[in-house]
């Protein structure tokens, strides 16, 4: 059927979701419709850049863009907010309404009342970026800022306190120089699965080197299935306890690099402690039972917490202590927990104790580092508002702003929030409902129209979040607008992709730039916003900015478009994080206050004494293990005995593309449950089950598999929330089960820390 198919044109395009890759696509267009989606086919030679082969999500794009759920016209809410009733209105009426409400709220409450909520559903486009909203608001006097991300809040803080830098990892391709890799909750086969990204680099390194790989994870991930020589299942949230047990063996068996600890680190033992701290507070004291808790962190102690036999912990410590060099890294799963900062810092202790960082084949304990080319984004200007909330704290900023402070919620720029959020811009974001914790509580907060007074959503689809908009605007998809895209953070090569508009916008869809420009016009800043350029002129303008970085790019934009895809291989040897510091810590100190690796963090010591924490939360100067509100209480009968994590699933990227039926067919939404737990509950594979706790209930089919640890469920995150008439989610959306209680230091989302129960549910009526 295909040989006879005549295509009118083939254009370069891109997949723009938040997986860490940025894959080029070739769209085959016939009679104004995309009829086929093909990958990068530019070939690959040894030493040159490789093909960036899109994964199933990008390859299924055609079925998604032409979905029945596409938003095609501007909509205005009728009835109460969140009921999901809308009427079609004209663009003019929609834009006039937005401008009028924005003007009123700016005048009545000031700029801190306006918030552009976190969202990554359309990421990596330059002109189509959410930056346009920030640029617009900055021209209007600013907006309440946000910091952190839903992906990396806890680990980022952990790295800053430990190393004084956000990113310290070696490239994954540096595994060619390693003897052993230990991956804590690091699963590139599912989180970075593009054929241009981390998984492809891992394959190549493993094939070249044949090194031993150990995966430590509650779930037997596809990375474990494909690449691990051994899988060590661990109870969620227990990584710091495992590290305690490993450290005990390393210290007592003389496997630590004492010279490195003396010269590069603060707080390993009494000899390297800051002067003003009382004795008994070093890391060695903590591990050997000489610290305040008097508990020796033996493998037997760690076994009880982690579920890993003590003997295996001892063996693993000896493996780590004798493999030189060893690549110890973590993904972002271990840190997305109630005490995720502790887990992230603790994992770094393994390379620190063994001197395995700053060297080829080693790693700092951080996630693998990227390589990319620093192409420019659009100029967003400066935000005159200096107040910033952790991105996870926005519900509190609506509901309880008077109690949102620097010392209890990580507010920056002010001691206390003075203005509640009254206006939300939500672009390509499903954070309003689907991806934020505790959906039922969020719904209650947003349903009160006196609190947040105006919600404007701009999106491709009618999502659970879109249903809570007051004005809902239909945005063009990547098929319908030209843009330029660069390589992303989960890749090790430079790329520039000139995406061309393949088809006319569906319905009345408009680009984000046009929407912002039309609001800017009504707010009196049209000229400042557009600088006299149209959407496509901005694309061309930004291309020429890229030529300043890579002058070899064609001078004429039209010539460049014909090529469409430009790639640059990572030059030289794989990047080694912290290398200069390792080689000469005096000349190249870290950006920590001491200039050293802060095993003991004086900043956290101070925070522990000044920050206000709820009972049960702790901040400690050392990377310690502490039990949290998310650990099952085994001493008594508990209504919610199972831990539930939410792994990233190949069916979608976060919640993006989740409504693509092709992807649902290939990878249906199911909760992973161990046969031991399933048998106890009379649950068979494929049964409909109810997962519930004090926050909510969800219905989903069971995947009964030995690939998940007993006592643990994994419900893949990002499934679209669909509440039935009784309010119960029908689609396995994990965020009806997650908590809005933030982590102690970063005030980040602890969305893998959940206690639940599971039971067999009846079939649908």
């Amino acid at each position: 059927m295909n040989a006879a198919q005549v295509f009118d044109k083939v254009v370069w395009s891109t997949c723009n979701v938040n997986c860490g890759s940025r894959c080029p696509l070739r769209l085959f267009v016939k009679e104004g419709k995309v009829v086929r989606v093909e990958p990068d086919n530019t070939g690959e030679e040894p030493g040159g850049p490789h093909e960036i082969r899109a994964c199933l999500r990008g390859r299924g794009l055609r079925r998604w863009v032409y979905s029945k759920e596409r938003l095609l016209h501007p909509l205005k809410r009728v009835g109460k907010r969140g009921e999901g009733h809308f009427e079609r209105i004209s663009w003019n009426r929609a834009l006039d309404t937005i401008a009028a409400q924005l003007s009123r709220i700016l005048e009545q409450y000031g700029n801190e009342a306006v918030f552009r909520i976190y969202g990554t559903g359309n990421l990596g486009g330059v002109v189509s970026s959410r930056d346009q909203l920030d640029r617009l608001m900055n021209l209007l006097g600013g907006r309440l800022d946000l910091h952190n991300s839903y992906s990396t809040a806890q680990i980022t803080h952990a790295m800053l306190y430990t190393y004084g830098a956000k990113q310290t990892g070696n490239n994954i391709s540096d595994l060619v120089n390693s003897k052993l890799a230990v991956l804590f909750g690091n699963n590139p086969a599912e989180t970075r699965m593009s054929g241009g990204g981390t998984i492809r680099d891992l394959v190549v390194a493993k094939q070249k080197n044949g090194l031993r790989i150990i995966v430590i994870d509650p779930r037997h991930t596809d990375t474990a299935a494909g690449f691990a020589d051994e899988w060590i299942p661990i109870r969620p949230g227990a990584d710091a306890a495992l590290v305690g047990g490993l450290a005990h063996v390393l210290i007592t068996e003389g496997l630590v690099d004492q010279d490195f600890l003396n010269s590069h680190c603060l707080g390993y033992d009494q000899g390297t402690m800051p002067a003003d701290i009382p004795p008994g507070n070093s890391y060695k004291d903590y591990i050997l039972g000489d610290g305040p808790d008097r508990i020796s962190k033996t493998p037997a102690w760690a076994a009880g917490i982690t579920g890993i036999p003590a003997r295996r912990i001892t063996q693993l410590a000896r493996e780590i202590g004798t493999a030189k060099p060893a690549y110890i890294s973590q993904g972002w799963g271990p840190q997305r927990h109630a005490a995720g900062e502790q887990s992230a810092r603790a994992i770094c202790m393994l390379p620190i104790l063994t001197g395995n960082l700053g060297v080829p084949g080693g790693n700092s304990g951080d996630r693998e580092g990227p390589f990319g080319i620093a192409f420019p984004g659009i100029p967003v200007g400066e935000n005159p508002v200096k107040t910033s909330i952790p991105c996870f704290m926005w519900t509190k900023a609506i509901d309880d702003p008077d109690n949102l402070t620097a010392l209890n919620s990580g507010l920056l720029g002010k001691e206390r929030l003075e203005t509640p959020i009254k206006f939300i811009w939500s672009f390509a974001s499903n954070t309003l409902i689907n991806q934020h914790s505790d959906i039922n509580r969020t719904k209650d907060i947003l349903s009160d129209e006196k609190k947040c007074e105006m919600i404007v959503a701009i999106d491709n689809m009618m999502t659970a979040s879109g249903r809570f908009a007051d004005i809902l605007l239909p945005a063009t998809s990547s098929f319908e607008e030209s843009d330029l895209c660069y390589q992303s953070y989960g890749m090790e090569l430079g790329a520039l992709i000139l995406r061309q508009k393949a088809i006319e916008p569906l319905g009345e869809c408009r680009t984000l730039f046009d929407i912002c420009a039309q609001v800017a016009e009504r707010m009196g800043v049209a000229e400042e916003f557009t600088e006299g350029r149209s959407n496509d002129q901005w694309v061309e303008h930004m291309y020429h900015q890229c030529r300043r970085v890579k002058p070899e790019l064609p001078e004429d934009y039209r010539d460049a478009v014909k090529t469409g895809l430009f790639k640059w291989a990572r030059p030289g040897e794989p990047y080694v994080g912290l290398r200069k510091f390792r080689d000469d810590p005096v000349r190249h100190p870290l950006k920590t206050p001491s200039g050293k690796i802060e095993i003991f963090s004086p900043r956290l010591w101070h925070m522990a004494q000044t920050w206000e924490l709820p009972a049960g939360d702790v901040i400690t100067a050392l990377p310690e293990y502490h039990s949290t509100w998310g650990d099952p209480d085994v001493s008594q009968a508990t209504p919610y005995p199972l831990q539930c994590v939410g792994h990233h699933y190949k069916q979608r990227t976060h919640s993006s593309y989740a409504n693509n039926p092709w992807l649902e067919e290939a990878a249906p939404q199911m909760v992973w449950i161990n046969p031991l737990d399933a048998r106890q509950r009379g649950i068979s594979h494929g049964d409909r089950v109810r997962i519930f706790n004090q926050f909510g209930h969800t219905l989903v089919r069971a995947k009964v598999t030995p690939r998940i640890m007993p006592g643990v469920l994994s419900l893949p995150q990002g499934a679209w929330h669909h509440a039935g008439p009784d309010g119960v989610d029908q689609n396995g959306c994990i965020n009806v089960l997650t908590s809005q209680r933030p982590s102690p230091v970063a005030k980040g989302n602890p969305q893998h820390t959940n206690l639940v129960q599971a039971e067999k549910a009846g079939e649908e009526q």
Partner: protein
Amino acid sequence: MLKRPAFFLDAQICTGCKTCMIACKDKNNLPMGVRWRRVVEFAGGDWVRLEDGTFSQNVFAYYISVSCNHCRDPICVQACPSTAMYQDGHGIVTVDPQKCLGCRYCEWACPYSAPQFDQALGQMTKCDFCREELEQGGLPTCVAACPTRALQFGEYDQLEQAVRHGFGLLMAPLPPPVLTEPNFILAPHRDAKSEQTRTGAICNPEEVKDA
């Protein structure tokens, strides 16, 4: 054009991502329920709770991406009562829509579930190895799609020589190759079980069986 094209899967690096499956659906405009290429998840192992509350286990899992294997001895061709199913000079097995009655005998006969029934057409449809791509010197769409480069294709004889154990070592849950002599070569996963194994089971029946 190859004399006898065969698929090759390095099961050691197949991560079960299913990009091959979606690329095939896109290229061939396949409706829901019709999967010319499927990815089987085979997993097993037992858990033991030890006295101290810790666990020991021997869990394994691997994936096998399977389409039509364009068998040398295609049982679907034998089973077809209307001669719609036929094999060309390169061994590629195709269904002729002019002749297919939609009786589904080929589907029942095939041990790989390769022929797939299209409800709307009332006929069988199946993988044709992207024949016109091969004729033009291109790659099958599924092969060009593979992010880890686990799925490849080539001349049968060369592929067989390249794999140490040859195709005699097929993996569970695939049927014994002697049945149909598939043009499908596997580099086995390190945990590969033999086709007679009693350890493990297909762990994703809902993803590979007809809806």
